[in-house]
């Protein structure tokens, strides 16, 4: 609840009068409260003090009484006890001494009253004195008389005495009244030992104690009276104090109020200055900076701590040094300085352009004490102006390039604004032309005016933008084409406010469009021409196709006929094959059986004749076979079954068939045939090899017939694709070079000068050639020299594909 002196750190805390009063009251109340506490505290302390005094006084009384008590007890002790008349006091049963009771000579009984007894009796008398008596007691731990038994408090006291205490006292209630009781010890003396020696005491021991209780009643009375007086005094003092506080506070209240108000005003002004975006700087007449707001901090870059106390030249650029003096002079003269544009320099060295407003600062008497300047950073403004200029230039340029001008018609004031480009399009001098809607219409081609006007009015009425192309007619008769677009802006109530639009010179475009149209027309003409040409060609083509179709039909017919012929031929071959062979089978078969004497013995002549039959039969069969083979090959109906076999075996078999003739002619046979596995048509190859061998034997009269087999590789091929060459050579009659090309043709038979008739069908080599080339995928070559011999070489692939 402690207060601060109204100054809070964050900006302006506004203290109105009401707030101030409240503050003040708080002070006052607090002061009063404290004063009250003080007074009350003192009062209480004082009261306590009084109380103590009172008790002390009672104690004094009690002590006095105690001493008194002890004194006459002492006397009795010194006397050794006092004998009293037995008829006044009964003997003390607790006093067990020898001489307790005595008899006088004249017969009066006397008994001893011991000190304690005496004291006690006296105590009792005192007790009876008033209703608030002083209560005395004599006690001992080793009591003889039960009445002398110490009570609780007294016992505690005795313990304390044993510990060395000489006195105990307390305020207590006895018999319903307030008492101060005091308790002191009795110390054993010599005299005590007379009667109490047998209890075991020594001199100096504590034998017990005497307690004195004095009533507090009249003490209290005195105290009360005193306290009441005291209270009044204190009350008076308190009242005095409160009065002083209140008076004081009221007095200062006003003073503070005035102060706070002016403080507040100051604070408001101060924060206005602080929050301004402009730099507000106050300086004295020497140019020393006195005040520096946050705007100045931001603009110039110097913090307040850095700037205050410095000379204003801190921010003055070197070329403006006399400026400040000049400004001050102006102010002194009483002139106002407003919107004075100048340059300043910032902490980081940048120069900025500022607009200054300078005012005088005067003291209470109106004397000039300083200058206050508000600087507005206009560099951004200047930049903005630059940008604006630049942007406007760009816009103008763009319009120029696009030949697009813009216009704006303010419908409220009926003022028309035209951009530069529109003037250029319309070829009108801006200085002499008053831009208005009517003037604009006047420049439009008469034929188009109505349309343009209608388009515009419709657009405004219907609230839709429009675009229209129209012509401009110039005084010299030229025409320009323009595209005009427009949009109208309406107010919230629907009234049209202004129309904005563009006008674009599209003359060039129009011309281009015209050119394109012409080109198109030209193209179309040409296309039409071509089309008719094409159609003619197409027609011709169609005719050709028809002809072709006819021819194809004819061909198909011919083909069908050919196929029919082919079929017939095959049938012929098949049936011929069967029909011709059947009788031959018998001829050859039976002649063979007979020749071999299966049916009976034969003589040599018979055998020879049968041999002729057999031979002729065979010849006929071979002729038939050749003819049939040829016809089959011609028809492409040869079925080839390749198999793997040893070439040597094949050659051996062929040799076995011509061996007889060879030997009969006395010819030598040379063999160079290594075993060679090949994969080919065995039957057909056999036929060819046999053909060559029999030819060789047929056409050789003397010398050798040789067969040679060689494996060759075609260059650039793997061994898989290698070939085998079978060469049959003879030393026969040879073949004339002019005959050599004809050798593989059908029905070519050589005429040998030595032999008139060389058997042969004339088909052998033809067939062999055909078989090798078409069935065995190989080739056959001939080397011969007339009169020397011939060499036939068959080359076939090792692996028939």
């Amino acid at each position: 609840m402690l207060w601060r002196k109204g100054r809070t750190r964050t900006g302006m805390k506004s203290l109105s009068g009401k707030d101030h009063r409240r503050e003040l009251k708080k002070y006052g109340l607090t002061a009063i409260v404290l004063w009250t506490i003080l007074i009350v505290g003192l009062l209480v302390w004082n009261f306590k003090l009084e109380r103590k005094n009172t008790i002390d006084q009672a104690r004094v009384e009690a002590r006095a009484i105690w001493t008194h008590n002890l004194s006459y007890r002492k006397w009795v002790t010194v006397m050794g006890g006092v004998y009293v008349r037995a008829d006044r006091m009964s003997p003390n049963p607790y006093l067990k001494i020898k001489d307790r009771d005595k008899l006088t000579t004249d017969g009066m009984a006397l008994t001893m009253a011991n000190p304690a007894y005496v004291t006690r009796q006296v105590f009792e008398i005192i007790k009876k004195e008033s209703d608030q008596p002083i209560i005395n007691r004599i006690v001992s731990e080793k009591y003889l008389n039960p009445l002398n038994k110490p009570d609780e408090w007294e016992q505690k006291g005795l313990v304390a005495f044993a510990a060395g205490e000489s006195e105990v006292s307390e305020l207590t209630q006895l018999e319903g009244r307030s008492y101060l009781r005091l308790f002191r010890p009795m110390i054993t003396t010599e005299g005590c030992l007379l009667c109490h020696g047998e209890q075991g005491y020594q001199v100096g021991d504590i034998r017990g104690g005497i307690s004195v209780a004095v009533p507090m009643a009249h003490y209290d009375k005195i105290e009360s009276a005193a306290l009441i007086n005291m209270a009044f005094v204190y009350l008076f003092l308190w009242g005095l104090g409160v009065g002083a506080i209140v008076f004081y506070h009221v007095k200062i209240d006003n003073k503070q109020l005035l102060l706070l108000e002016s403080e507040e005003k100051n604070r408001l002004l101060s924060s206005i200055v602080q929050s301004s975006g402009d730099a507000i700087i106050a300086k004295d007449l020497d140019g020393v900076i006195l005040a520096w707001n946050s705007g100045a901090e931001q603009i110039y870059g110097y913090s307040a701590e850095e700037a205050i106390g410095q000379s204003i030249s801190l921010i003055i650029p070197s070329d403006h040094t006399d400026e400040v003096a000049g400004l001050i002079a102006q102010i002194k003269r009483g002139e106002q300085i407003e919107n004075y544009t100048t340059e300043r320099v910032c902490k980081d060295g940048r120069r900025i352009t500022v607009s200054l407003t300078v005012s005088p600062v005067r003291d209470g008497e109106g004397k000039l004490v300083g200058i206050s300047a508000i600087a507005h950073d206009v560099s951004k403004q200047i930049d903005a102006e630059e940008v604006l200029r630049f942007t406007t230039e760009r816009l103008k340029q763009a319009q120029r390039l696009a030949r697009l001008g813009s216009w704006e018609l303010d419908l409220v004031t009926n003022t028309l604004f035209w951009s530069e480009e529109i003037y250029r399009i319309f070829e009108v001098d801006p200085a002499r032309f008053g831009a208005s809607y009517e003037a604009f219409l006047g420049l439009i081609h008469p034929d188009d005016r109505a349309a343009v006007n209608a388009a515009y009015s419709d657009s405004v009425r219907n609230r839709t933008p429009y675009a229209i192309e129209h012509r401009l007619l110039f005084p010299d008769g030229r025409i320009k084409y323009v595209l005009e677009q427009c949009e109208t802006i309406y107010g919230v109530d629907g009234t049209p406010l202004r129309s904005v639009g563009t006008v674009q010179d599209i003359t060039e475009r129009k011309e281009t469009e015209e050119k394109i149209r012409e080109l198109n027309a030209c193209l179309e003409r040409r296309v039409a021409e071509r089309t008719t040409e094409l159609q003619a060609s197409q027609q011709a083509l169609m005719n050709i196709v028809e002809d072709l179709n006819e021819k194809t039909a004819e061909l198909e017919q011919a083909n069908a006929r050919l196929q029919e012929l082919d079929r017939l031929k095959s049938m012929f071959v098949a049936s011929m094959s069967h029909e011709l062979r059947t009788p031959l089978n018998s001829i050859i078969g039976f002649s063979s059986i007979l020749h071999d004497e299966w049916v009976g013995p034969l003589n040599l002549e018979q055998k020879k004749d049968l041999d002729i039959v057999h031979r002729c039969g065979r010849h006929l069969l071979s002729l038939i076979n050749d003819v049939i083979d040829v016809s089959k090959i011609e028809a492409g109906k040869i079925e080839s079954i390749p198999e793997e076999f040893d070439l040597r075996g094949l050659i051996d078999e062929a040799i076995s068939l011509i061996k007889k003739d060879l030997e009969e002619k006395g010819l030598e046979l040379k063999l160079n045939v290594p075993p060679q596995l090949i994969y080919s048509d065995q039957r057909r190859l056999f036929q060819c090899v046999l053909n060559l061998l029999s030819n060789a034997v047929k056409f050789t009269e003397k010398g050798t017939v040789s067969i040679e087999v060689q494996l060759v590789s075609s260059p650039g091929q793997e061994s898989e694709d290698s070939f085998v060459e079978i060469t049959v050579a003879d030393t026969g009659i040879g073949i004339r070079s002019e005959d050599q090309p004809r050798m593989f043709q059908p029905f070519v038979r050589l005429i040998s000068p030595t032999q008139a008739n060389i058997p042969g069908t004339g088909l052998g080599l033809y067939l062999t050639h055909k078989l090798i080339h078409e069935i065995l995928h190989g080739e056959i070559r001939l080397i011969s020299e007339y009169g020397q011999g011939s060499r036939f070489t068959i080359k076939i692939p090792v692996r028939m594909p």
Partner: protein
Amino acid sequence: MKKVLVIEDNSDNMRLITYALERAGYEVIPAESGERGVELAISLRPFFIIMDINLPGIDGIEATRQIRASGANGSIPIIAITSFAMFGDRDKMIAAGCTAYFEKPIDPLTIVRKIHESISVTGD
């Protein structure tokens, strides 16, 4: 004596083949038609059969099929004799069930040996 059934319609050919077979020690049972041949094949169960393919009526291929289909004669070698081997004839013959085939003209001097070779009979 082992029986050989010869199914051949041409008497000259029949005579020729009979010579060769009898010389080789076989008893020849002739059949002049395919149907007769099938009958005899089933009833006689010969050692092997020589079948001429070119037969009137049912041809040799059909006869072979029938013989094979009869079941009883599944393993008897059937040697086909044909006068020409056109396309597919070979396959047809094998498909029908022929064990081997020879083309006409057959050489009577060697035919039996060749037959033996084709049916893996040792000795002549």
